[in-house]
């Protein structure tokens, strides 16, 4: 399977890079992340709970940063292990500073709140992985589409986190949806 994409984040490359290496931030922004710990310099272990339709499962993740050239680039070797199989591969990230253009893709929350921000980062990612186990019997479209969704949601959450971190407002919870009081 292959994934690729890009996202503009409302912070400089340095803040983005540091946030991406901070376990507490990762715990808050990675969808379904239940636990994450740093087991060695640039090496993380964690668990992810995703209630996928028909498959609800807990995945254990192992991620190692390699060839890091902060804050401009980093390689990430990782494994996601679950009952339905394992996905192991590598992704490469590029972070380049961009001047203050208007929000590029019109998605709500991506720096479109009008406030002028010191500098912004274009984060590009490209990754390839081998799927093993029962998941390999599904069309690779499933793993790829799911990965793109989780990465997009993670980067959006990271962006909200970066905005809150840089502003004085008390940090709200990472989850976007309002909730009525229980009856």
């Amino acid at each position, binding site marked *: 399977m292959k994934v690729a994409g890009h996202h503009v984040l409302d912070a400089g490359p340095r803040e983005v890079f540091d946030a991406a290496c901070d376990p507490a931030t990762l715990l808050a922004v990675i*969808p379904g992340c239940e636990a994450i710990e740093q087991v060695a310099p640039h090496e993380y272990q964690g668990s992810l*709970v*995703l*209630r*996928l*339709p*028909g*498959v*609800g*499962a*807990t995945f254990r993740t192992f991620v190692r940063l390699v060839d890091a050239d902060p804050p401009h680039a980093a390689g990430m070797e990782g494994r996601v292990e679950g*009952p*339905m199989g394992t996905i192991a591969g590598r992704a490469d990230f590029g972070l380049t500073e961009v001047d203050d253009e208007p929000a590029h893709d019109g998605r709500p929350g991506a720096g479109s709140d009008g406030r002028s921000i010191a500098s912004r980062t274009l984060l590009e990612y490209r990754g390839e992985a081998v799927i093993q186990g*029962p*998941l390999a*019997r*599904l*069309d690779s*479209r*499933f793993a790829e*589409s*799911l990965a*793109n*969704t*989780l990465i*997009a*949601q993670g980067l959006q959450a990271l962006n909200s986190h970066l905005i809150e971190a840089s502003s004085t407002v008390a940090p709200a919870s990472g989850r976007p*949806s309002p*909730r*009525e*009081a*229980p*009856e």
Partner: protein
Amino acid sequence: MTVVEYFLPRSLAQAVDLLSRHGPDLLVIAGGTVAMPLINDGISLPRQVMGLRFVGLDEIEPSDGGLRIGATTTLTSLLRQRHVPMLAEAARRTASWSIRNMGTVGGNLFTPPPGGDVAVALLALDAEVTLEGSRGRRTLALSEFQTGFMTTALEPQELLTGIGVPAVAGETTYVKFGRKEANTPSVVTVAVRVARDGEVVTDARVALGAVGPHALRARKAEAVLVGSSLEPGAIDEAAEAAAEECEPFDDGIASAWYRRAMVRLFVRRALEELVQHVALEGR
């Protein structure tokens, strides 16, 4: 894992309690038409499963001009109701008679594309979903419930309990175009609702299926329609906008190229049908 426990709660309260006690490892199924094939094939290997078939959420009742649909209402029941014709047509075009007797309206909202065509009709009807869990009940627009490919806004301890279809104005049309007439995944599904003041469109919904991570609103196309009188120029411009903003994919049924071309064609055909009130020939 071989399933070691299969729960069949007889009430919503029992279901919510089981979910909060057993947490994320409890796989929730309704009609089983999504989960069971994966379990039979050894792709999904749950230890504990909860079936919602008998929790009593399978009723449809009209409510102030709209419709309250229980989450485990079967597609056959949705096919037989006469209140919202577009939902009956969406159910009729889904799977086969036996599967419609088992599959549920709620389950359809979790079905990844190119499935999940009832959700497309619900999106065009501004439907809302009701979620309930140990922390209470909340209501969410369907467009915010489906958050990505095979992901929703459902919290770990929550269940989808119902779908609300508000009393919405306007004429509707629905077409599902597949590689054959029946029991086949969608190449593209189009659900359109247009409210008009005389000739002028005051409100428009264009919902697309099988051309994105989940049912999509073609918002640019809708913007083109509002204020128009559905004249040919507006229809073509809206069809072009929908074809541009959709995110089609390749699969065994059709390529992204073909799906995008069929979005352009069937949005146009749907709008023309509204203008001519001619029964749309889906084939």
